[in-house]
């Protein structure tokens, strides 16, 4: 046995370029629409042009007669399948039956009515236009507050009040806090509807093998395993005869954390026609039919003392649910309530949610999912309280932060914050931004009549979803690590990354534990036929939960490696590190590849040991993690045009231990850009008849390169004890932190005009009107 060089360089913590990228920069990755199969047919879907209407009749004959059309299905044909599943449960929740195709009524513009199957995609689209539907239009309601007014049109006739659920949470003595308050500030704050806009729209390919009685669904999804369970149920198919594959996925941001009508429908169609079927969502369909995010009207009241002490917070939260519950729709606003105290010490809170049906596409999880709304609320209210008592916004935060010695900190909403140094993050952000000097510059700017603003947001988020009792479908994650007979390593993860880079970060963890090279590791995900059951990628969980599962699988594997090593070295006293097992007595060693070969050859098995080197671990997290940080934004508003210029953007984020700083920066940048989209540009607009006015990228403004500033990132590092790697998660941080920092900055800029609050998006028109009407909207 040769003496092997021990690998000592560690990769965790290093800026390593991604293993994913070669296929992506060469155009050779396979997204859903890249899949071609012999005999494949194409589906196009006829969707309702009305927000509410009765369907009197549907004539499919002209479509069926169109050359190249194979079949047309309507609601009557799919009565045996479905419904589209809702995975969230709340006491008293009203759950409308969500059929995969409309039956006698449509509930929102874009509601699927019929599906055409043809031999090519052009013919399928042609034929959709030949279906004749006789609609009787009905009154619709698209504004959640109007939906609550007496006499409003009923979205679902069986529930004339349009209320899907109410939810109350209270802690401490709120009435006393408000009675004793020296200052109370009230504000209505809107977190507008947003369109997630993953650059790849959704798409489904379904392939039925009648001989094997098995169905494969390729879907652009974040949750292949949950989809398998739920689609199998909806189709009445044994789950082990359904395989779901998430191929390359072109962004999700929560919009693909769902099971939609189309996955069920395409499975049904494939089984009916006996040919592979492909449906690719158009961008217009994506805007009309894939979930939207946010959609809050929040009535906040904050109570405080003149010395800046916050005493309590009240919230009435009106959540626009849309016409149906998608997978997690009603659960999202409950996350806002959980995080409503932010990172402050006050104990008195009262929240009431009213979940309201509207004739719009459902809302559901969009990057941050409930937490951006909560952070926007508390961070605006803290700023408004500071303004009311004439206190610096940084100072009021320092005064109220939960202190480092108070962790684990039990929040009034029932969470246990793991670790934090909130003042530390804010101090760092103030230092990086040069806060004092900025305030001096602001004084000068104001003397010159310029509208310069400085905005702070200090956020905490609940991440790494999460302990199973607190999640709808289990919150653990699975990992299998396999050392192949040649010593190459294969990792199977139940997390289903789609751009986050876990093929790289998980490989970094493996390399450090097993002493192998990055090129020796392959990380596989997204295929239920390959990977043991898993939960998926969302809620900033993939690395903190999935990576931890990999870590634990590796620990068990290392024990096995040592056992085989001990047998080969004929010693009881061995250690394994750097890819080599060494006898501590003789110094003789065997490499991982030699051990792997021997473990599969199995000529000489250690007593009581299975052959092979495979380890699977399902890791159940004992708690969520709670990343935090502080963002500071410097803006200047143009008096003539109302346009906002972002002069500086400083982001200090603490996501615990960092595996790959380059990828963490990427997550922060992208998250900030989406938060900025909400703060300045984006809004899904429905008119009073329920027509989506912002129905294409021509009308819905996601940020372009010129609309995003250079972001100055810095970090503090406070590890979590929740997992052995100390990782907290970072996927949503930027989005959660950004919008209040921007709005606080612009309100600060306009405060000399008497402006106290502005709802997003801060469009030039809105600001121009404020400037020219002396601060009154």
């Amino acid at each position, binding site marked *: 046995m040769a003496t092997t060089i021990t690998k000592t360089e560690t990769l965790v913590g290093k800026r390593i370029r991604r293993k994913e990228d070669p296929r*992506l920069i060469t*155009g050779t990755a396979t997204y859903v629409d*890249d899949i*071609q199969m012999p005999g494949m047919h194409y589906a196009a879907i006829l969707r309702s042009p009305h927000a509410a209407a009765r369907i009197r009749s549907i004539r499919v004959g002209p479509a069926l007669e169109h050359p190249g059309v194979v079949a047309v299905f309507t609601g009557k044909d799919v009565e045996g399948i479905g419904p589209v599943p809702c995975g969230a449960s709340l006491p008293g929740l009203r759950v409308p039956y969500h059929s995969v195709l409309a039956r006698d009524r449509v509930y929102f513009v874009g509601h699927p009515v019929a599906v055409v199957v043809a031999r090519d995609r052009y013919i399928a689209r042609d034929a959709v236009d030949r279906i004749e539907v006789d609609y009787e239009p009905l009154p619709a309601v698209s504004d959640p507050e109007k939906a609550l007014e007496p006499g409003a049109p009923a979205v679902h006739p069986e529930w004339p009040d349009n209320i899907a659920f109410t939810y109350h949470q209270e802690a401490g003595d709120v009435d006393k806090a408000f009675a004793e308050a020296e200052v109370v500030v009230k504000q209505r704050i809107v977190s507008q509807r947003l369109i997630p806009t993953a*650059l790849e729209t959704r798409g489904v390919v379904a392939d039925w093998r009648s001989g094997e009685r098995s169905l494969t669904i390729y879907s652009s999804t974040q949750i292949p395993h949950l989809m398998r369970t739920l689609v199998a149920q909806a189709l009445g198919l044994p789950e082990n005869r359904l395989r779901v594959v998430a191929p390359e996925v072109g962004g999700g941001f929560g919009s693909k954390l769902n099971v939609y009508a189309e996955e069920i429908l395409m499975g049904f169609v494939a089984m009916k026609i006996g040919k592979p079927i492909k449906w690719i969502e158009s961008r217009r369909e994506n805007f009309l039919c894939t979930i939207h995010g946010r959609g809050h009207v929040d009535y906040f009241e904050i109570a405080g003392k003149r010395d800046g002490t916050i005493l309590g917070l009240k919230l009435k939260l009106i959540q626009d649910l849309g016409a149906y519950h998608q997978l997690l729709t009603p659960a999202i606003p409950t996350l806002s309530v959980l995080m409503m105290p932010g990172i402050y010490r006050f104990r008195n809170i009262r929240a009431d949610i009213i979940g309201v049906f509207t004739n719009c596409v459902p809302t559901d999880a969009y990057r941050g999912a409930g937490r951006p709304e909560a952070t926007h609320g508390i961070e605006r209210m803290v700023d408004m309280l500071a303004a009311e008592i004439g206190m610096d916004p940084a100072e009021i935060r320092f005064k109220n932060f939960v202190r480092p010695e108070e962790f684990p900190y039990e929040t009034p909403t029932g969470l246990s914050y793991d670790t934090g140094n909130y003042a530390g993050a804010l101090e760092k952000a103030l230092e990086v931004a040069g806060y004092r000097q900025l305030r001096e510059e602001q004084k000068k700017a104001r003397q010159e009549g310029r509208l310069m603003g400085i905005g702070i947001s200090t956020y905490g988020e609940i991440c790494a979803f999460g302990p199973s009792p607190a999640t709808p479908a289990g919150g653990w994650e699975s990992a299998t690590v396999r050392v192949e007979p040649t010593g190459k390593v294969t990792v199977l993860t139940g997390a289903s990354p789609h751009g986050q880079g876990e093929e790289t970060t998980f490989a970094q963890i493996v390399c450090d534990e097993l002493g192998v090279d990055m090129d020796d590791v392959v990380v596989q995900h997204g295929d239920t036929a390959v990977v043991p059951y898993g939960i998926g990628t969302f809620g900033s969980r993939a690395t903190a939960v999935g990576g931890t599962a990999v870590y634990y699988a590796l620990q068990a594997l290392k024990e096995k490696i040592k056992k085989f090593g001990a047998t080969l070295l004929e010693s009881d006293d061995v250690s394994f590190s750097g890819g080599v097992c060494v006898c501590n007595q003789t110094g003789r060693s065997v490499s991982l590849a030699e051990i792997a070969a021997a473990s599969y050859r199995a000529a000489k098995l250690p007593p009581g040991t299975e052959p092979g080197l495979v380890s699977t671990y399902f890791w159940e997290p004992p708690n969520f993690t709670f990343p935090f940080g502080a963002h500071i934004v410097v803006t200047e508003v143009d008096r003539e045009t109302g346009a906002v210029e972002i002069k500086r953007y400083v982001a200090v984020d603490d996501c615990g231990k960092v595996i790959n700083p380059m990828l963490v920066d990427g997550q922060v*940048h992208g998250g900030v850009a989406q938060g900025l989209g909400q703060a300045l540009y984006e809004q899904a607009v429905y008119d009073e008849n329920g027509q989506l006015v912002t129905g*294409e*990228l021509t009308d819905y403004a996601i940020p372009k390169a010129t609309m995003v500033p250079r972001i100055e990132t810095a970090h503090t590092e406070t590890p979590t004890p929740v997992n052995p790697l100390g990782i907290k998660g970072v996927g949503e941080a930027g989005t959660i932190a950004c919008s209040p920092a921007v709005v606080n900055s612009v309100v600060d800029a306009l405060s000399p005009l008497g402006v106290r609050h502005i709802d997003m998006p801060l469009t030039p028109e809105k600001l121009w009107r404020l400037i020219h009407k002396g601060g009154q909207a």
Partner: protein
Amino acid sequence: MTRTISLTINGKPYSHQVEPRLLLIHYLRDVVGLTGPHIGCETSICGACTVMVDGKAVKACTMFAVQADGREILTIEGLATDGRYDPVQEAFWNEHALQCGFCTPGMILAVKQLLERNPRPTEEEIRHGLEGNLCRCTGYQHIVNAVKAAAARMGG
């Protein structure tokens, strides 16, 4: 009714019978099998379908295949030469200028054109030059860094 088109794609000659209404992007993806260029909006806003036609970056979702008759097309698949990445590809990899990768093929070709026209662009010029290509993942900062790195590498 179909028409015959003959064109060069990534240096190789192709000839097909196509319907006049067939979009160039569908021709490239579904007929020729080059699925590198993607479809993100079908309205020429997002730029995911960007390819080079006679050396100019074009959004292939709003051009018909018949309009490409006799032309030279370059897609992302044809960018690397002799198994070596183009400096722009290499820079995108080094600078972590992509996450989900869906916009990347179009983005890289848009950058190619940008650097051909302006070998030493300022940050502002880079951002302006990329306005026709949307990315929802990166916030653009690493893309801008990659363009700078590629420009430096290409001796701009």
